[in-house]
Protein backbone atom coordinates (compact mmCIF):
# COMPACT_ATOMS: atom_id res chain seq x y z
CA UNK A 1 0.00 0.00 0.00
CA UNK A 2 2.61 2.46 1.10
CA UNK A 3 4.79 2.26 -2.00
CA UNK A 4 2.14 3.11 -4.59
CA UNK A 5 2.04 6.84 -5.32
CA UNK A 6 -1.37 6.62 -7.00
CA UNK A 7 -2.90 5.87 -3.59
CA UNK A 8 -2.05 9.39 -2.48
CA UNK A 9 -3.02 11.40 -5.55
CA UNK A 10 -6.46 12.30 -4.22
CA UNK A 11 -5.41 12.83 -0.63
CA UNK A 12 -6.11 16.45 0.38
CA UNK A 13 -3.71 17.71 3.03
CA UNK A 14 -3.54 20.94 5.01
CA UNK A 15 -0.23 21.92 6.61
CA UNK A 16 -0.51 24.39 9.51
CA UNK A 17 2.70 25.85 10.89
CA UNK A 18 3.95 29.38 11.36
CA UNK A 19 7.46 28.40 10.23
CA UNK A 20 8.22 28.02 6.52
CA UNK A 21 11.00 25.53 7.24
CA UNK A 22 8.64 23.05 8.85
CA UNK A 23 5.93 23.52 6.22
CA UNK A 24 8.54 22.90 3.54
CA UNK A 25 9.74 19.72 5.23
CA UNK A 26 6.21 18.32 5.51
CA UNK A 27 5.40 19.31 1.93
CA UNK A 28 8.52 17.48 0.73
CA UNK A 29 7.48 14.33 2.55
CA UNK A 30 3.95 14.47 1.15
CA UNK A 31 5.09 15.28 -2.39
CA UNK A 32 7.49 12.34 -2.36
CA UNK A 33 4.55 10.10 -1.56
CA UNK A 34 2.65 11.49 -4.54
CA UNK A 35 0.28 13.79 -2.66
CA UNK A 36 -0.68 16.59 -5.04
CA UNK A 37 -3.36 18.51 -3.16
CA UNK A 38 -1.47 20.38 -0.46
CA UNK A 39 -2.58 23.67 1.10
CA UNK A 40 -0.62 25.64 3.70
CA UNK A 41 -1.70 27.94 6.56
CA UNK A 42 0.46 29.86 8.99
CA UNK A 43 -1.78 29.71 12.08
CA UNK A 44 -4.79 27.89 13.48
CA UNK A 45 -7.20 30.70 12.77
CA UNK A 46 -6.33 30.78 9.06
CA UNK A 47 -6.46 26.99 8.96
CA UNK A 48 -9.94 26.89 10.47
CA UNK A 49 -11.15 29.37 7.88
CA UNK A 50 -9.73 27.21 5.08
CA UNK A 51 -11.39 24.13 6.57
CA UNK A 52 -14.77 25.89 6.81
CA UNK A 53 -14.45 27.06 3.20
CA UNK A 54 -13.62 23.55 2.07
CA UNK A 55 -16.70 22.30 3.90
CA UNK A 56 -18.86 24.88 2.14
CA UNK A 57 -17.36 23.91 -1.22
CA UNK A 58 -17.83 20.20 -0.49
CA UNK A 59 -14.11 19.71 -1.03
CA UNK A 60 -13.03 18.66 2.42
CA UNK A 61 -9.55 17.79 3.56
CA UNK A 62 -8.52 14.29 4.55
CA UNK A 63 -5.54 15.11 6.69
CA UNK A 64 -4.19 18.04 8.71
CA UNK A 65 -0.63 18.40 9.92
CA UNK A 66 -0.77 21.01 12.66
CA UNK A 67 1.91 22.63 14.77
CA UNK A 68 1.16 22.93 18.47
CA UNK A 69 2.57 26.33 19.31
CA UNK A 70 1.30 29.00 16.90
CA UNK A 71 0.07 32.59 17.09
CA UNK A 72 -3.66 33.50 17.04
CA UNK A 73 -4.95 29.92 17.48
CA UNK A 74 -2.76 27.04 18.62
CA UNK A 75 -2.89 23.46 17.40
CA UNK A 76 -4.97 22.02 20.23
CA UNK A 77 -7.66 24.69 19.80
CA UNK A 78 -7.76 23.94 16.06
CA UNK A 79 -8.08 20.23 16.79
CA UNK A 80 -10.88 20.74 19.32
CA UNK A 81 -12.72 23.11 16.95
CA UNK A 82 -12.67 20.48 14.20
CA UNK A 83 -13.61 17.57 16.42
CA UNK A 84 -16.62 19.52 17.70
CA UNK A 85 -17.84 20.26 14.15
CA UNK A 86 -19.91 17.41 12.71
CA UNK A 87 -18.72 18.16 9.20
CA UNK A 88 -15.06 18.39 10.11
CA UNK A 89 -14.68 15.79 12.83
CA UNK A 90 -13.67 13.00 10.46
CA UNK A 91 -10.57 14.85 9.27
CA UNK A 92 -7.42 13.10 10.45
CA UNK A 93 -4.92 15.07 12.49
CA UNK A 94 -1.21 14.63 12.94
CA UNK A 95 0.15 17.08 15.50
CA UNK A 96 3.65 18.52 15.18
CA UNK A 97 5.49 19.72 18.22
CA UNK A 98 8.89 20.43 19.64
CA UNK A 99 10.48 18.11 22.15
CA UNK A 100 9.65 20.47 24.98
CA UNK A 101 5.90 20.14 24.38
CA UNK A 102 5.80 16.35 24.44
CA UNK A 103 3.38 16.06 27.34
CA UNK A 104 1.02 18.53 25.74
CA UNK A 105 0.93 16.55 22.53
CA UNK A 106 -0.13 13.44 24.40
CA UNK A 107 -3.10 15.48 25.56
CA UNK A 108 -3.85 16.24 21.91
CA UNK A 109 -3.93 12.52 21.12
CA UNK A 110 -6.44 12.11 23.95
CA UNK A 111 -8.52 14.83 22.27
CA UNK A 112 -8.67 12.98 18.97
CA UNK A 113 -5.36 13.49 17.16
CA UNK A 114 -4.40 10.40 15.19
CA UNK A 115 -0.68 10.73 15.68
CA UNK A 116 2.08 13.19 16.48
CA UNK A 117 5.57 14.11 15.32
CA UNK A 118 8.30 15.58 17.47
CA UNK A 119 10.71 18.11 15.93
CA UNK A 120 13.29 17.76 14.55
CA UNK A 121 12.10 15.24 11.99
CA UNK A 122 12.85 14.15 8.44
CA UNK A 123 10.68 14.05 5.33
CA UNK A 124 10.99 10.26 5.52
CA UNK A 125 9.24 10.31 8.88
CA UNK A 126 6.33 12.21 7.33
CA UNK A 127 6.02 9.54 4.67
CA UNK A 128 5.99 6.80 7.29
CA UNK A 129 3.32 8.52 9.35
CA UNK A 130 1.05 9.03 6.33
CA UNK A 131 1.50 5.47 5.13
CA UNK A 132 0.63 4.19 8.58
CA UNK A 133 -2.43 6.40 8.75
CA UNK A 134 -3.57 5.38 5.26
CA UNK A 135 -3.41 1.74 6.27
CA UNK A 136 -5.48 2.57 9.33
CA UNK A 137 -7.97 4.39 7.09
CA UNK A 138 -8.12 1.40 4.73
CA UNK A 139 -7.22 3.49 1.71
Amino acid at each position, binding site marked *: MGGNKSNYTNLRCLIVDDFE*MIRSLIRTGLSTLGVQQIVEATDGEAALQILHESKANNNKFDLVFSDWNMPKMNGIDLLVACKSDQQLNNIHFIMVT*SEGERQAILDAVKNGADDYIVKPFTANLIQGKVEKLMEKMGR
Partner: protein
Amino acid sequence: MSGIVPQIEKFRPIVREAVQNTFQIMFGTSVSEVTLLEKNLPKMNGILGTISFLETADVSLTFILAFKKETIFNVLSAFYGRDFEDFNDSVFQGVGELTNIIYGHIRTTLNDAGYELKMSRPNVVFEKDLPQQQGHKDFLVLKYEFKGEPFFIYLGIG
Protein backbone atom coordinates in the same frame (compact mmCIF):
# COMPACT_ATOMS: atom_id res chain seq x y z
CA MET B 1 16.44 26.98 41.03
CA SER B 2 19.58 27.96 42.93
CA GLY B 3 21.11 24.62 41.91
CA ILE B 4 21.46 25.76 38.31
CA VAL B 5 23.68 28.75 38.84
CA PRO B 6 26.91 27.15 40.09
CA GLN B 7 26.59 24.16 37.79
CA ILE B 8 26.26 25.72 34.36
CA GLU B 9 29.01 23.53 32.94
CA LYS B 10 26.75 20.53 33.28
CA PHE B 11 24.55 22.03 30.56
CA ARG B 12 27.33 21.51 28.06
CA PRO B 13 26.65 17.88 27.05
CA ILE B 14 22.91 18.57 27.02
CA VAL B 15 23.37 21.52 24.67
CA ARG B 16 25.78 19.56 22.49
CA GLU B 17 23.34 16.69 22.08
CA ALA B 18 20.47 19.04 21.24
CA VAL B 19 22.46 20.96 18.62
CA GLN B 20 24.03 17.93 16.96
CA ASN B 21 20.77 15.99 16.93
CA THR B 22 18.89 18.88 15.31
CA PHE B 23 21.45 19.51 12.56
CA GLN B 24 21.91 15.82 11.81
CA ILE B 25 18.18 15.17 11.41
CA MET B 26 17.14 18.37 9.66
CA PHE B 27 20.17 18.98 7.46
CA GLY B 28 21.88 15.57 7.36
CA THR B 29 25.02 17.37 8.50
CA SER B 30 27.24 16.85 11.48
CA VAL B 31 28.20 19.94 13.42
CA SER B 32 31.08 20.00 15.84
CA GLU B 33 31.49 21.77 19.14
CA VAL B 34 34.76 23.63 18.72
CA THR B 35 35.43 25.54 21.88
CA LEU B 36 34.03 26.73 25.14
CA LEU B 37 34.54 30.48 25.18
CA GLU B 38 35.43 32.32 28.32
CA LYS B 39 33.67 35.53 27.52
CA ASN B 40 30.41 36.79 26.10
CA LEU B 41 29.26 36.31 22.54
CA PRO B 42 31.79 37.59 19.99
CA LYS B 43 30.81 40.45 17.72
CA MET B 44 29.87 38.99 14.37
CA ASN B 45 27.34 41.20 12.55
CA GLY B 46 24.83 38.42 12.83
CA ILE B 47 21.34 37.38 13.72
CA LEU B 48 20.15 35.74 16.89
CA GLY B 49 17.25 33.73 18.20
CA THR B 50 16.67 34.26 21.90
CA ILE B 51 14.46 32.69 24.52
CA SER B 52 14.24 33.93 28.08
CA PHE B 53 13.15 30.76 29.73
CA LEU B 54 12.99 31.63 33.40
CA GLU B 55 12.50 34.99 34.96
CA THR B 56 11.91 35.57 38.65
CA ALA B 57 12.78 38.41 40.95
CA ASP B 58 16.06 36.68 41.76
CA VAL B 59 17.24 35.04 38.57
CA SER B 60 16.81 35.08 34.81
CA LEU B 61 18.02 32.52 32.32
CA THR B 62 18.55 33.26 28.66
CA PHE B 63 19.15 30.92 25.72
CA ILE B 64 20.61 32.43 22.56
CA LEU B 65 21.37 30.76 19.23
CA ALA B 66 23.62 33.12 17.28
CA PHE B 67 24.72 32.96 13.66
CA LYS B 68 27.14 34.91 11.56
CA LYS B 69 25.42 36.13 8.43
CA GLU B 70 27.35 33.74 6.19
CA THR B 71 26.64 30.76 8.45
CA ILE B 72 22.88 31.10 8.56
CA PHE B 73 22.76 31.73 4.81
CA ASN B 74 24.71 28.49 4.27
CA VAL B 75 22.50 26.56 6.69
CA LEU B 76 19.31 27.70 4.97
CA SER B 77 20.74 27.18 1.48
CA ALA B 78 21.48 23.58 2.44
CA PHE B 79 17.88 23.15 3.56
CA TYR B 80 15.95 24.96 0.84
CA GLY B 81 18.33 24.38 -2.06
CA ARG B 82 18.44 28.06 -3.00
CA ASP B 83 20.82 30.91 -2.28
CA PHE B 84 20.25 33.46 0.48
CA GLU B 85 21.74 36.92 0.24
CA ASP B 86 19.51 39.06 2.47
CA PHE B 87 18.01 38.88 5.94
CA ASN B 88 14.49 38.14 4.68
CA ASP B 89 11.51 36.53 6.43
CA SER B 90 12.75 33.03 5.63
CA VAL B 91 15.99 33.77 7.46
CA PHE B 92 14.21 35.17 10.53
CA GLN B 93 11.82 32.22 10.58
CA GLY B 94 14.63 29.72 10.11
CA VAL B 95 16.58 31.10 13.06
CA GLY B 96 13.42 31.14 15.16
CA GLU B 97 12.54 27.56 14.36
CA LEU B 98 16.05 26.26 15.00
CA THR B 99 16.06 28.12 18.32
CA ASN B 100 12.70 26.60 19.17
CA ILE B 101 13.75 23.05 18.32
CA ILE B 102 17.13 23.13 20.07
CA TYR B 103 15.77 24.83 23.18
CA GLY B 104 12.84 22.38 23.25
CA HIS B 105 15.30 19.50 23.33
CA ILE B 106 17.29 21.09 26.16
CA ARG B 107 14.15 21.87 28.09
CA THR B 108 12.89 18.30 27.94
CA THR B 109 16.21 16.93 29.16
CA LEU B 110 16.36 19.37 32.07
CA ASN B 111 12.73 18.95 33.03
CA ASP B 112 13.19 15.18 33.02
CA ALA B 113 15.96 15.86 35.54
CA GLY B 114 13.60 17.73 37.81
CA TYR B 115 13.65 21.33 36.62
CA GLU B 116 10.54 23.16 35.58
CA LEU B 117 11.62 25.29 32.65
CA LYS B 118 8.90 26.95 30.64
CA MET B 119 8.48 26.97 26.86
CA SER B 120 8.08 30.25 25.05
CA ARG B 121 8.25 31.47 21.50
CA PRO B 122 11.68 32.65 20.35
CA ASN B 123 12.42 36.28 19.66
CA VAL B 124 14.64 36.78 16.62
CA VAL B 125 16.71 39.96 16.48
CA PHE B 126 19.77 41.39 14.84
CA GLU B 127 22.85 41.25 17.01
CA LYS B 128 22.86 45.02 17.43
CA ASP B 129 19.33 44.88 18.84
CA LEU B 130 20.03 42.15 21.38
CA PRO B 131 18.66 43.10 24.80
CA GLN B 132 21.26 43.71 27.45
CA GLN B 133 22.93 40.41 28.30
CA GLN B 134 26.03 41.60 30.10
CA GLY B 135 24.36 41.46 33.49
CA HIS B 136 24.50 37.69 33.64
CA LYS B 137 26.92 36.64 36.32
CA ASP B 138 27.25 33.11 34.94
CA PHE B 139 27.29 32.17 31.30
CA LEU B 140 28.27 29.42 28.93
CA VAL B 141 29.21 30.21 25.33
CA LEU B 142 29.77 27.27 23.00
CA LYS B 143 31.15 27.65 19.51
CA TYR B 144 30.01 25.22 16.81
CA GLU B 145 30.81 24.92 13.13
CA PHE B 146 28.53 24.16 10.20
CA LYS B 147 30.65 23.30 7.16
CA GLY B 148 33.48 25.41 8.55
CA GLU B 149 31.32 28.43 9.42
CA PRO B 150 30.82 29.30 13.11
CA PHE B 151 27.67 29.67 15.14
CA PHE B 152 27.22 30.00 18.88
CA ILE B 153 25.04 28.94 21.77
CA TYR B 154 24.85 31.29 24.75
CA LEU B 155 23.33 30.34 28.10
CA GLY B 156 23.23 33.23 30.49
CA ILE B 157 22.20 33.21 34.12
CA GLY B 158 21.98 36.36 36.14
